[in-house]
């Protein structure tokens, strides 16, 4: 009997602890705080969920709304951009972004993306790098099966060589593309400046020549590989195509 009581107690404590740390429970708590107008506390709760590795569209949308309420528009933009990637809240996030962007006193010129960069973005989202790899992989398997079956006279194809070479070419293209998209995805990150302003300099030094000023809400493209060379600085490209070094403080990477 004693053993049964102990076991039940242990199970109860374990389940209670698990339910407290579940993202949904924290999310509900944070939503209550948001409705009560305790925006900073709500944001703190939301951040704990994010730090635990869980993510969802409503989470980022609500974080953006909380950031707007505490008048941190750069941060709000950052969270709305993250929320935009989730289909369930995409429309709300786009509407919120439109609002936030209209509130910045300084607007950044934004060069349109090159067609190749647009294509890379599309591949990155659908079918994704692993999807591209799988297409290439399936193509490779089919090519090898065609060759092997032909060796043992199990099939008879008039244009066997053409089919096999075409399939192998597709494999090479798709696998190369998958690795290139993966490389671009790993090397470059989109980021948002959430501090009021920051200086963009020619070199990662305080004394270096000033390239431009960046203001809250500016979209930045960050070169992760180059940025690793200098601690505390990021090598970035501004929306108008200018390059330079910016202090890492006050920048949120998407």
């Amino acid at each position, binding site marked *: 009997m004693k053993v049964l009581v102990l076991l039940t107690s242990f199970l109860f404590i374990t389940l209670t602890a698990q339910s407290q740390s579940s*993202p*949904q429970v924290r*999310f*509900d708590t944070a*939503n209550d705080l*948001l*409705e009560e107008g305790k925006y900073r506390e709500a944001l703190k709760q939301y951040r704990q969920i994010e730090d635990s*590795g*869980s*993510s*969802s*569209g*409503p*989470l980022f*949308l*609500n974080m953006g*709304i909380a950031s*707007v309420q505490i008048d941190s528009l750069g941060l709000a933009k950052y969270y709305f951009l993250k929320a935009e990637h989730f289909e*369930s*809240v995409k429309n*709300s996030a786009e*509407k*919120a972004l439109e*609002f*936030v962007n209209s509130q910045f*006193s*300084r*607007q950044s*010129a934004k060069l349109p993306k090159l067609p190749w960069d647009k294509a890379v973005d599309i591949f990155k989202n659908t079918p994704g*790098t*692993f999807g591209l*790899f799988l297409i290439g*992989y399936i193509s*490779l*398997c089919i090519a*090898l099966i065609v*060759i*092997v079956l032909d*060796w*043992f006279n199990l099939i008879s194809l008039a244009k066997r060589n053409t089919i096999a070479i075409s399939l192998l070419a597709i494999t090479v293209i798709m696998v190369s593309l*998958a*690795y290139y998209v*993966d490389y671009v*995805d*790993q090397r470059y990150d989109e980021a948002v400046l959430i501090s009021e302003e920051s200086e963009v300099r020619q070199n990662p030094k305080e004394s270096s020549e000033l390239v431009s000023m960046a203001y809250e809400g500016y979209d930045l493209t960050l070169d992760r590989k180059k940025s690793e060379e200098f601690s505390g600085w990021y090598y970035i490209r501004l929306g108008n195509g200018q390059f330079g070094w910016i202090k890492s403080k006050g920048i949120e990477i998407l």
Partner: protein
Amino acid sequence: MIKTGKKLASLFIFFLFVLSCQKSNAQSVSVQATLTETNIFEGESVQLDIAISGTSLSSLERPEIPTIEGLRYLPNRTISSSNYSYINGKPSLTQTFGFQFIAMSPGSFNVPSIKIKVNNKEYAAKPISFKILDPKTIDNGDAERSPDIYVRLEASTKNPVVGEQVVADIVLYFKSEVEVSNYNTVPGWKAEGFWKEELNNPAQARSTSVIINGIRYKRARLLQYALFPTKPGELTLSPYSLSVRVRNNRRTSRDPFNFSFGQENKELKTLPVTLNVERPPGIENAEYIGAVGDFEIKRTIKPTSAYVGESVEIITEIKGTGNVPLLNKPEYEFPESLELYNPQENSAITRDNRKIGGSKVFTDIVIARNDGLYTIPEKRIATYNPSSDKYEYTVLPEITFNAEIDPNATVTTLEDMRLDIDPVTGLANWEQKSVIPLKNRKSVFVLMAVPFLLFIGAFGYKTYYDKLTNDSGFARSTKAREMAFSILEEAKKTEDIKESYHKIQKALSRFIADKLNLPIAGISAQRLLEEVKDKKLNSSALADLKRIFEKCETVAYAPNISKEDMETDIQKSRELIKELGKVL
């Protein structure tokens, strides 16, 4: 016979002019003396020109030539000419007298001040110093070696500061016997590290005379560029290329009458020129906009009063000479509540008098989002003047403008300014962030390895299959053991002992023959034993093989062999086949 018609005509024009100007009260008269060469070789002729210019020359005496030390006057070669022109809407007459001399003895000399009476008043020209050189001092070897024609890139300064204008002249030097008919520039000259602007070049290049290393050359400036260094350090101007069409007037043995057969195209190139560009000194309490030169800066606002939401322009105009194309926009401290738009920039550049100048206008566009008085604080701007080697400061006074609410404008409600999105509550779909890069996914490498391994296996099997089909020796060798065991199995089942031993012999012979690709029929046991012996079969196995072969041959004469003996021999044969399989 001396032609006098031209002289009379020019004198007539001159006196008409004198009469027409008698009543005018212009008093400005200038007298200028020039020598066509100031470095003259002994024995060379030289001309002294005395030009008298003025708006009214009512009486003019021919100047008297004083004795000039080092020169001998050639009295029969005096010329005179007159030129009438309008300068700034006023008539001007220039009467020039040219006197010919011959250089007599080497040394440094002066043409003394020459006095002349104009309008009953005495004027004097400034003295001119000149040198007469001894032709013997010219090294004939040097003269021979010196090129007939060459081009140089001459920079106005070798130590500019960043942004300072450097005039780069492309200058052609050629000897007097060389005639240049035309030239063409070779496109593609790049001045790396410099901002380059082409200055206004004369339609026709004029040549002057210079002496270089004792050799007289004509010097003609063909082109001129304004260069602005954009960074400090040693910057090198790459060679400039020209294509020149020349004719050498020196008579040669091939063209003794100088019929001008010697016209040719020459490709000329300047030497590279290195400039040491320095950084302008440091600056405090002012903004440096990169301006190097002589500039005036002005800031204005248009309009000074606007409605909320209307654009207001803050215009900064920078005018002067210097690096106008490289000027940066001054940064102003705008009040937070002003919305800023991309500034505009316009420039107008002039290229006269070997200087880049003009103006650059920056227009900041701001829009007031609230009503009230806005102030843009004063700004201190520094420009660097290389001629005085110091910064010059301009303080742009503060400017204010008033923004009012347009009474006819529609009012934006507070609702319009608010984020109209409600937070999402309730259940959410949760995802765990796990984006593993493709290069770090082990499954990718495993997936890639599988088809390749299967493909290699299939290829190996195909090769084996092909060999089995096409190579009879390989096929026999491969199937030898299986075949031998099958014959031994038959031998075991046979009731007749003689027949069994016949099959044992057949199994062993067939196995050895198949393994060594020997013909099956007509091969003796002795031959097989020799073949096996060569393959280094161990001696006990060889002895067993020999014994079994002998027993098989003599079985017909040994009726007392039991079934057990036969089975033992079959078993022994199996072992022998295994042993033989290792060496064959």
